[in-house]
């Protein structure tokens, strides 16, 4: 019997091996972990830390997720543009203003391109910026708290896609419009698009101390689609480059109509020149409504201010500030190498990859090597700005990253691969398949003078069979490649939140040391904070009731409240009195039409409860806090609207 079983088992194993080897299509997946030592290269032992942070956009989740590399472990989903019940983002009274816009409260967006702040062209790890694509907004995430500190709406923009990229001293975060629109917005036949629609490129200044954003100016460009962008750096610092498509200015069936021109453009913008122009009083102020939302770590509260005008600049008014570089076939990614010399136009419908030279561009401008103009903006001669072409590297190039060692890595959507090529000689030196249909790629520090060329993360558009199936919708996914050697090596697949559009990576040591552990209770300036436990109380103002509550392991003060009536609007202002690391408390109330609160040590948050029927209703702590967490609970007595129940509150009294 045993022999028979053994034989059967052996047969199954052999069959397994044969069938695995047969699965060539799946590349090195079939070889498993045994064929390489990939597993040990991504293994971070329990209790050990990762070498890099990766901030990966949450795509249509609207958020920003924080991963460790090389492990691919998820640490946190930072709520940015979408409500997040887990953290009460957009649900509590303090953060609701963060999601205000000129259209009112917009609880969702499509987050795309994170970029980390820089000093002298190197990552400084203070802030991550990310764009909301749908209702144009730019957010700044503070890397001491890993929370969204500020969101500014971008008026005159639509499909905020060529965003949010940072100049090398974080002078500006730049936001370009993908969809051109009538400016100002007005009732117009759609077919009147051509010549009437404009594309706004917004330069948002960043205060070097506080990070506070302000729209410095909007450059009003012809009505093309501005797809992606990157700043010049080092020698090309002071310039910004934007890819365009739909230079045909089609307003319908763009799939066909925007693919007619042999070449579209990369727009080169000399922002230093325009900055000087506006600093000397240039530009035109126009009415524009947009929200500017700022969160304060002192009041633990956000404020939303509606702005009323914006400074616009007509490119024709600043001679020498804007040029077009012809670039084949609807270029998507616009990537600048660490030296600032090369500008890569990833022509997504082209068989070749076009690389422009910054030096040649300056020379062509100086010697007026023009090939016509578009709406008065000079078009430089293609041959005179071209540095070189990567010949036939793959199909559907989208984005290029650099390792700082003279190599570039381009993602190819259609042929689903990452291709490594040499900057300067344009020869392809390696290629690795991606599973499947890679969009963006990311090397930590990729948008800086100093990339950390150890890992490449591909963010894939299609997952198909890479994971256990989860119904029609499968996980979104990224892949990690080791790029420290001559050949790229696929190390790891890991799932991501939403569609990962782009990411920004940074060595952990730059960021981790600044991470805040708690908020000091003594510095809490929340208007409804209860700093001293003796001040815990309940106040009635008409039918508004304000509960000044404290929480510490493991009770609420007060935990018995009477005298609340049906029809009251009850504000729970809850202050966490813990002053130790990693002791948040939560609170939730039965039937409250909102989320729980999750309150960090020293912080105050508020939720609103409108009791609808008489009774005695419990609330409790939602975040397991101590051995007595289950005891952390309380009751509110709700009386009929007409009752005379006296308002009183207590803790630990009979």
């Amino acid at each position, binding site marked *: 019997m045993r022999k028979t079983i053994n034989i059967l088992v052996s047969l199954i194993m052999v069959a397994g091996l044969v069938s695995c080897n047969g699965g060539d299509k799946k590349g090195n997946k079939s070889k498993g972990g045994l064929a390489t030592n990939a597993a040990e290269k991504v293994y971070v032992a329990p209790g050990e830390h990762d070498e890099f942070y990766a901030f990966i956009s949450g795509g249509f989740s609207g958020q920003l997720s924080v991963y460790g590399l090389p492990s691919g472990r998820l640490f946190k989903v930072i709520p940015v543009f979408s409500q997040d019940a887990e953290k009460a983002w957009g649900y509590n009274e303090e953060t609701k203003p963060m999601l205000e816009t000129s259209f009112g409260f917009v609880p969702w967006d499509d987050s795309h391109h994170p970029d980390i702040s820089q000093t002298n062209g190197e990552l400084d790890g203070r802030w991550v910026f990310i764009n909301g694509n749908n209702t144009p907004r730019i957010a700044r995430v503070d890397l001491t708290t890993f929370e969204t500190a500020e969101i500014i709406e971008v008026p005159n923009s639509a499909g905020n896609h060529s965003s949010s990229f940072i100049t090398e001293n974080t002078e500006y975060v730049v936001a370009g419009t993908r969809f051109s629109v009538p400016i100002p917005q007005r009732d117009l036949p759609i077919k009147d698009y051509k010549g009437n629609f404009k594309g706004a490129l917004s330069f948002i200044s960043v205060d070097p101390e506080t990070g506070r954003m302000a729209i410095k100016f909007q450059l009003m460009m012809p009505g093309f689609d501005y797809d992606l962008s990157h700043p010049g750096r080092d020698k090309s610092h002071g310039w910004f480059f934007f890819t365009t498509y739909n230079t045909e200015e089609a307003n319908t069936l763009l799939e066909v109509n925007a693919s007619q021109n042999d070449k579209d453009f990369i727009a080169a913008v000399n922002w230093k020149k325009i900055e000087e122009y506006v600093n000397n009083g240039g530009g035109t102020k126009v009415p524009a409504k947009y929200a500017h939302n700022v969160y304060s770590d002192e009041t633990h509260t956000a404020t939303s201010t509606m702005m009323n005008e914006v400074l616009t600049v007509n490119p024709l008014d600043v001679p020498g500030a804007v040029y077009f570089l012809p670039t084949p076939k609807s270029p998507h990614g616009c990537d600048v190498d660490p030296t600032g010399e090369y500008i890569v136009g990833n022509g997504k419908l082209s068989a070749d990859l076009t690389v422009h030279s910054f030096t040649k561009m300056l020379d062509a401008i100086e010697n007026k090597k023009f090939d016509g103009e578009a709406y008065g903006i000079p078009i430089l001669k293609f041959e005179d700005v071209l540095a070189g072409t990567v010949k036939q590297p793959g199909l559907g190039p989208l984005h290029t990253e650099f390792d700082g060692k003279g190599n570039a890595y381009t993602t190819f959507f259609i042929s689903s691969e990452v291709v490594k090529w040499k900057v300067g000689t344009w020869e392809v030196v390696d290629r690795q398949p991606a599973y499947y249909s890679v969009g963006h790629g990311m090397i930590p520090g990729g948008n800086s003078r100093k990339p950390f060329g150890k890992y490449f993360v591909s963010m894939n558009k299609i997952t198909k069979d890479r994971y256990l199936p989860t119904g029609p919708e499968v996980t979104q996914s990224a892949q990690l490649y080791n790029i420290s050697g001559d050949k790229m090596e696929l190390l790891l697949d890991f799932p991501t939140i939403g569609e990962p559009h782009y990411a920004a990576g940074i060595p952990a040591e730059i960021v981790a040391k600044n991470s805040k552990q*708690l908020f000091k*209770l*003594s510095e809490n300036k929340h208007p409804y904070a209860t700093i001293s436990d003796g001040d815990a109380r309940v106040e009635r103002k008409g039918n508004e009731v304000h509960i000044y509550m404290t929480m510490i392991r493991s009770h609420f003060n007060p935990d018995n409240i009477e005298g609340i009536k049906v029809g009251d609007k009850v504000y729970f202002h809850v202050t966490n*009195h813990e002053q130790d690391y990693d002791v948040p408390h939560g609170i939730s109330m039965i039937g409250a039409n909102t989320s729980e609160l999750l309150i960090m040590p020293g912080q105050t948050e508020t939720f609103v409860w409108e009791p609808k029927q008489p009774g005695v209703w419990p609330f409790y702590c939602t975040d397991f806090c101590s*051995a007595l967490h289950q005891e952390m609970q309380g009751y509110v007595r709700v009386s009929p609207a007409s009752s005379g129940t006296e308002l009183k509150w207590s803790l630990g009294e009979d």
Partner: protein
Amino acid sequence: MKNIMRSLTAIAILTLISCGGKEEKKKDGIQIGQKPPATETPKEEPASNEKPSEMVDLTNKGIGPIKSLELPAEIDQAMAAKGMEVYKTKCMACHKPDKKFIGPAPTGIFERRTPEWIMNMILNPEDMTQNDPLAKALLVEFNGSPMANQNLTEEEARQVLEYFRTL
């Protein structure tokens, strides 16, 4: 299947009957291990059963940064006032000055504890409740409710200590 349903129905009916069946009125609350009636005089607890919070130990200095501390004879009232402010914001959620609450009351604490032990308990509670025999026993007495580390500076802890002297 039908049989199962029938059995379930029978069980449900039985349950109902047993619930409604008791006529005798229960006293409120649970009555396990109730204390004997008050008429009986409580026995003197043997010394070994003394509550940790009532135990006097004026030699144990505890575990932590404070190794030795001489208190001046005069109470520094300015320092005590500062200590009261710190106490109000960071301690009072669990310690009322003169009655047992989540934790013990500080009134009279110098009759039972050394100043070093008190400061180490404030500054180093995790270590104390794991390794100091008295602090360990206190954690048990207070139902496992942990002494929170409120991250006081040494200066603040000293101020709180001075405030305790005024109680």
